[in-house]
């Protein structure tokens, strides 16, 4: 299963990267969301899959799946959400102000 997941993660990541490299702002945001998902799954896979029961005590299990990656991912999911939200609003405002969502038109370095 880990092997299958490794490939799945790789494919998700590749799609995400491709989207990030396109010109449309919306696609870029969707791409970052996909990369976020891919990384979460990567962490989960690296921790080992289904090595025991869910990490809940008192349900009669004695062996649990690794709880630490899950805790890390929980944080990551929330932060991902924050990033996506901020990004979306940023894109929306940029479009409103500048009238384009084409990254090639948004390039500029006069103010650096």
């Amino acid at each position, binding site marked *: 299963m880990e092997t299958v997941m490794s490939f799945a993660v790789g494919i*998700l990541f590749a799609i995400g990267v491709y989207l990030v490299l396109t010109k449309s702002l919306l696609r870029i945001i969707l791409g970052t969301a996909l990369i976020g998902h891919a990384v979460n799954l990567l962490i989960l896979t690296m921790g080992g899959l289904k090595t025991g029961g869910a990490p809940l005590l008192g349900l009669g299990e004695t062996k649990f799946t690794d*709880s*630490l990656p899950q805790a890390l991912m929980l944080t990551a999911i929330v932060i991902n959400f924050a990033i996506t939200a901020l990004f979306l609003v940023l894109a*929306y405002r940029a479009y409103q102000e500048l009238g384009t969502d084409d990254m090639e038109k948004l390039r500029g370095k006069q103010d650096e």
Partner: protein
Amino acid sequence: MPGLFALVIIPFLFSFIVPFLYKKFNNKIHTGWFVLIVPLVIFSSLIPYIADISSGKTVSESIAWMPSLGLNFSFYMDGLNLIFGLLISGIGTLVVVYSIYYLDKDKESLHNFYIYLLLFMGAMLGVVFSDHVFLLYVFWELTSISSFLLIAYWYQREKSRAGALKSLLITVFGGLAMLAGFILLSLAGGTYRITELIGAGGDLSGHPFFLPAMILILLGAFTKSAQFPFSIWLPDAMEAPTPISAYLHSATMVKAGIYLVARLTPVFGGSAEWFWIVSGVGLLTLLYGSVNAVRQYDLKALLAYSTVSQLGLIMSLLGIGSAALYFGYGDESVVYATAVFAAIFHLVNHSTFKGSLFMIIGIIDHETGSRDIRRLGGLMHIMPVSFTIAVIGSFSMAGLPPFNGFLSKEMFFNAVVLIRDLPAFNMDTFGVLFPVVAWIASVFTFIYSMIIVFKTFAGKYEEERFIKPPAHEAPFGMLIPPIILALFVVGIFFFPNGLGRTLLEPAWHAVLPSLAGTGELHYTIAAWHGWTTELAMTIGVVAAGIILYLTLKRWRSLYLYYPQRFTLNSIYYWLLGKMESVSYKITEKYMTGSARHYMIYIFAFFIIVMGMSLFASGGFTIDLSNDAPVNFYELVIIIAMILSALTVLFSKSRITSIIAVSAVGFFIVFLFVFFRAPDLALTQLVVETVSTVLFLLVFYHLPKLKKEITRIRFKAVNAVIAVASGLVVTLVALAANGTRLFPSISKYFEDSYELAGARNIVNAILVDFRGFDTMLEITVLTIAGLGVYALIKLRLAGRDKDENSG
């Protein structure tokens, strides 16, 4: 007796309290009086060491800093660095006294000045007493930085800033080369300790790193000691206040390179490369400096070139002396070893006479407002004390008796005459150049020494040419330091061997430890050797010098024939300009302002570094034995997830893309359930729902996805980068599964009920074990929330107005 570490650290510590002293007392007492304590304490603490060191002992001290990296505050002292320590603190004392009268306490920002000065003093002591190559390097760069600050002390002046920048660029370039050289040398020698490297002696000469290390370290030494062609920063450094020029650019910092060459002579000496580079560059610098000094009108620039030239002289003596190590111990080696003795002797002499000369020039500048020899003249009767000191200093520099410069100059002539007969290093063909170059350079040295005295003090006194008339003698306090130095100049001539026995010989032995071990290395300095070749050379120098000085007006115009385009300065500025334009072009090439390009750099870097290190470290192994069994439902979900992700890639409509990405998120919820992560599943479900809503809200305002009209190449590059990134991630994931370097630490958290009273382990980690992290996570979320709010609320009102009105 405070330890060496304490001595080095005192100036740094004291610099912290200088601003407070300045603030509290400056309107009553010149801050310099407080600072004076530091060099005085250091100097007087070094004196008790002299007895020990001259009896052949050494002092060593080490304070742990990062012992695991072999990095310690290791200091040591032998004859060589004791001399430098005494010069640094002794001349430092005099310079501080001098500066008290030179710098006005009401007009100058003295706190800055003295902090820089102390910083420099500490760094310089650190350079000479360090026993660790990296420690030495750190102090070395500190001297460059503090020298930069001191040169730019009058930062309002354009020329000060330019001079400071030039010196910094050149010396730091050399410093970096030296660092590389040190690393190679330590690799070759297997130790970072300088004493141990010296102990290894010439054993390293067969090592492949020997030559590169030598050249790189010499680059550092030559840039610091203003050797040809790196000498150009020294004349520009004369923009610094004169006390600084006297201190840094005559007596101490420029001698750091000399120190380094002397220090490492046991390691590199005896090889033909070392001999030729050091003595050749030294002689070339000697000639270049003295010839250029004669053409200067500014007295300080003249002294700067003369310093360059004298440093070249010392350098060439060290090079000649290194020939002694070619032989090992024997009568023939002692002959050449004497050159090293002469180098150290001249080093001390140069510090005394050049220090006093700089101070006198400073006095002239201070009292008349000018340093230009075309304006000056006739000061002999007005400034009799300064005149006397100038005569002593200049005549010593010219190599005349009864001053100490005569003694070391004779020894120098002796060395260049004897080296002709060296039966090695092709000296039979080139040897004759040594005395010839030395003699010509000495004639020029004689000429510029005379210029200093007679163009300034003799001639007609024309007060209206001065900027600050009427000229008068300097205050007594300002004259004390140069008087003390002048007394040394004369005193050393009459009693050279007291100095020779106690300080010079131990230093000599420290430079040539393999020869000193036999205990036969002694030298008695004498003014009279009979009618020798050296004496004839000196007489010739005086005769030719006088003739050329008197006819100076007739041939000075010859200098104008040298094309301006080929001066070192023009080359330097040309190089600097080229460097700027080239780096600008390169930056312009890759900093395109396109986010996509920057993303490509990031991902390409990721692919190359991760992929390479994965294989280079041998970390890539595939081990499927620990895999969990593949379940049919899971497989279906994964395939569905990938299909929805692919839909995003090919979809032409916004709504499809958004829904497809949401679908990926929801399939992941299923995966979390399968993989025994109930908390994750719940969180993902909530987050995904909210994000979908958010996407749909914003989507209404976003433009339609256009069919991206792009060239094939654009797409191909994207695809290659994307596929390669995905591949690297897959490989990393596989490798991570194949190797487990450490057991999971999660066992600890499984006692969460006992530790935290929680049955849900993941929750316990988040809110109990790592509660602080979670709080910060919430902070991030809050910041993001504020950002979203601000972005929506923010209307660029001001800008809109501007655009409308414009």
